[in-house]
């Protein structure tokens, strides 16, 4: 069975690099969102196992998406992948239920490690 993943990032380059960095050992069913609002729409419409979420996005930012998810039951695992990795920001994000915080530019190994720790690998 493939893993349903939502990749939310306003940058195409970044989405591509995130998707390319996913370990090859698994199969993925990938949905892309180009801003926070699109991500919220996708999350309201279908079920996802995993969300790979950027923070700095137009319309609604990553924190907005986390706030949306925080208010709902049965939320998917969220891994935040952000260029803004100030400790303060990480604290906010983790408090809103994100499972991991990864820095941009994304390191393949770090992503694999996070997926392993979350039990996907």
């Amino acid at each position, binding site marked *: 069975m493939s893993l349903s993943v939502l990749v939310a990032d*306003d*940058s*195409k*380059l*970044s989405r591509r690099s995130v998707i390319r960095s996913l370990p090859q050992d698994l199969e993925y069913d990938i949905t892309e969102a180009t801003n926070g609002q699109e991500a919220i729409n996708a999350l309201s419409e279908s079920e996802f196992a995993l969300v790979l979420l950027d923070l*700095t*996005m*137009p319309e609604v930012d990553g924190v907005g998406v986390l706030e949306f998810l925080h208010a709902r039951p049965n939320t998917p695992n969220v891994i935040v992948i*952000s*260029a*803004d*990795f*100030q*400790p*303060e*920001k990480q604290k906010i994000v983790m408090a809103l239920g994100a499972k991991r915080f990864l*820095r*941009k*530019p994304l390191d393949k190994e770090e992503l694999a490690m996070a997926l392993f720790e979350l039990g996907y690998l």
Partner: protein
Amino acid sequence: MSIVLPLDEEQRDALQELLNISMGQAANSLAQLIETKIDISIPKISAVTPTQLYSLLFETKDAFYTRQSFLGDVHGEVMSVLSQAGLSEVATLMDYDEPLSKEDIQEIILELCNILAGACLAGLSEQLELTTNLNMPTLFLPDKANFDELQWQHSLVMEVQFVIAISSFSMRVVFCLDDESLARMKDTLDELLA
């Protein structure tokens, strides 16, 4: 009058993302040093005429201005616009004693520019695998007349904004590239996108 951006959509997107990452690094650097949270904007990329560049710089009222040039694989200038508001709070965070002298303020401005613009440029160069060296920043006051007389037609500008959350301080950093450097950067971006 709008000018056609000399980058295609993919190149623009890529550059924006790279800038975003660089800003993150820059903000983190400063945040570490002054132990406070810094908000960053989504970077803006556009092509401007000298007059447009001038009005871009003057969007912030009551500001300080600095410029510094960078050399290496790509050449250009970085202009920073720092709000006067909130600067004294930042000075306190930077361990300066009140009251601030005129020289203290200038020093703080130059240091902030050096850290943020420097880190931003360093991050961008690193990701593009380009070598750049930033020269020392200097204070300057943009003069409308001088801008009208500039020789170039249009320039690529990358604009990023940092806001220090607990004070009203904000700072914009505007990167300008010359034509040759723009061509080189486009090549590098294409390699990255391939």
